[in-house]
């Protein structure tokens, strides 16, 4: 029995290792090709490691950084992600507290609408949302966060209210009796307790904000601002010759920071995903 179990375990381990290779390979392939010269990237050589002839060092990276608007796109993506995430965290946690603590028609209607908004596909509002944003001047990377707050509120409010229901009311009542007004109670008592959910919401919303393509593509003024997903789509989508080297370098520069961040924050990300899964 013991020996049999050992064999089974070894087989499972080997299968998992093979799967792991399958998971890593696509990123690895982009990495090796991003180090090759442009003319050495074609269907025959794409699987070869760079050799003395094809290896060009980091010139693709420098190319991408200098000429393809990569730095600007990276900056815009960063501005949009950070401002939207901060705004979402602050506003929706406050809103969620009101919804959990005050029982009235406003709370009920808001909650129902927020939950509903999580299921509605983006295509339903893409045209009207883009034209609304255009009309009230929300079409720059600096104020698109208001639209993201509206569109991202559903998931965030849902997660916050789920957690707040488990916070004992007595703590907040004690603070109020001691003379805190609701704002003080919220920022000094409730917000610190919310920390784990704050981290989870940050992670889920950041993953979405950073990678979102269609919303910024439709809302932003396309000639002036590009985020990273738009830049990469623009790279490939335009007809004609694609410079594969800089393209791969671009992809690598987008992917590497995320992977490093993930390896550092793994524990929280996994917890965040589990916490986010309470929906349904």
């Amino acid at each position: 029995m013991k020996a049999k179990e050992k064999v089974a375990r070894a087989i499972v381990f080997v299968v998992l290792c093979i799967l792991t290779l399958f998971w890593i390979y696509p990123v690895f392939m982009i990495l090796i090709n991003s180090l090759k010269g442009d003319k050495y990237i074609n269907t025959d050589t794409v699987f070869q490691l760079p050799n003395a002839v094809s290896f060009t060092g980091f010139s693709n990276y420098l190319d991408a950084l200098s000429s393809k608007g990569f730095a600007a796109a990276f900056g815009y993506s960063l501005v949009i992600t950070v401002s939207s995430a901060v705004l979402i965290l602050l506003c929706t946690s406050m809103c969620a507290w009101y919804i959990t603590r005050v029982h009235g028609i406003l709370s009920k209607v808001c909650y129902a609408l927020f939950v509903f908004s999580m299921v509605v596909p983006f295509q339903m509002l893409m045209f009207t949302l883009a034209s609304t944003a255009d009309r009230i001047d929300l079409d720059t990377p600096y104020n698109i966060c208001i639209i993201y707050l509206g569109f991202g509120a559903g998931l965030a409010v849902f997660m916050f209210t789920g957690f707040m229901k488990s916070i004992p009311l007595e703590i907040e009542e004690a603070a109020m009796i001691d003379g805190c007004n609701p704002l003080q109670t919220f920022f000094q008592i409730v917000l610190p307790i919310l920390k784990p959910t704050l981290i989870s919401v940050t992670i889920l919303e950041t993953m979405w904000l950073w990678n979102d393509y269609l919303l910024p593509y439709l809302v932003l003024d396309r000639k002036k601002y590009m985020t990273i997903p738009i830049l990469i789509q623009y790279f490939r989508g335009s007809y004609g010759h694609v410079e594969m080297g800089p393209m791969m370098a671009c992809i690598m520069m987008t992917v590497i920071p995320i992977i490093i961040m993930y390896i550092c924050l793994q524990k929280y990300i996994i917890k965040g995903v589990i916490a986010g899964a309470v929906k349904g």
Partner: protein
Amino acid sequence: MEKAIRRYWPVFVLPTLAAFSVGFIYPFVQGLYLSFCKFTTIKKATFIGFGNYAYAFQDESFWHSFWFTALFTVVSTVLINVIAFAIALALTNKIKGSNVFRTVFFMPNLIGGIVLGYIWQILLNCVLSLMEKPLLALNATYGFIGLTILMCWQQIGYMMIIYIAGLQSIPDDYIEAAKIDGATTGQILFKIKIPNVMPSITICSFLTITNGFKLFDQNLALTGGEPAHASEMLALNIYNTFYSRSGAQWKGYGQAKAVIFCIMVILISMIQLKITKSKEVQQ
């Protein structure tokens, strides 16, 4: 206390509600209205009743993309959930290096759909050309398979994490008691583990079904609907109806399709939740 907070509603609720009205409620209602109109811009909309819907239901490309999406959703939901559950089972079984495996399998989730689409487009096209087969853009079947592989690669890790959490929440005594009673591994799996992770199955199937139906970025980047709209999924079909043609009628058709799409997503997810929830057991 409730009264005190209620007085502060402009501070607590108003900012979110205002943004939500601008970002969701208003566009949603306007979208509903416009689906009954002929329009190029919102100001120049004329009400035409159900004409757009009639067109949308007759549009063959819409039905083609509906079946393509439905088939894709079924195949990818089954594959993703079965594989993710199997990996989760293996990793909760004290396998060496399970943390490394978890990290690697989850990684693709952090990379955006557009980037993923291009990574796989390059990879799959190279593999296809080495096998001397037509490229992704020339053969819808390969496009379908490519999309399925891509979605599995991306989502298995996410679902695996949820399944691991579900499996770990099963009390050890259940399994020990079953072992003492002489249950086989298969019996433990089907009689104890699967019924107890039903909540996770509900969530994962909900997520995979809605993700499959709403899929856009990956579809756009991997195949772009090629060849000749044959690998176009619903979301992309609606997008193309809207933006790749000029003419007053197309936007109305697109909006009507979007409303139908929206109703479909809501209905399907409600039916799915109802079915899997009814199979959940109390722990």
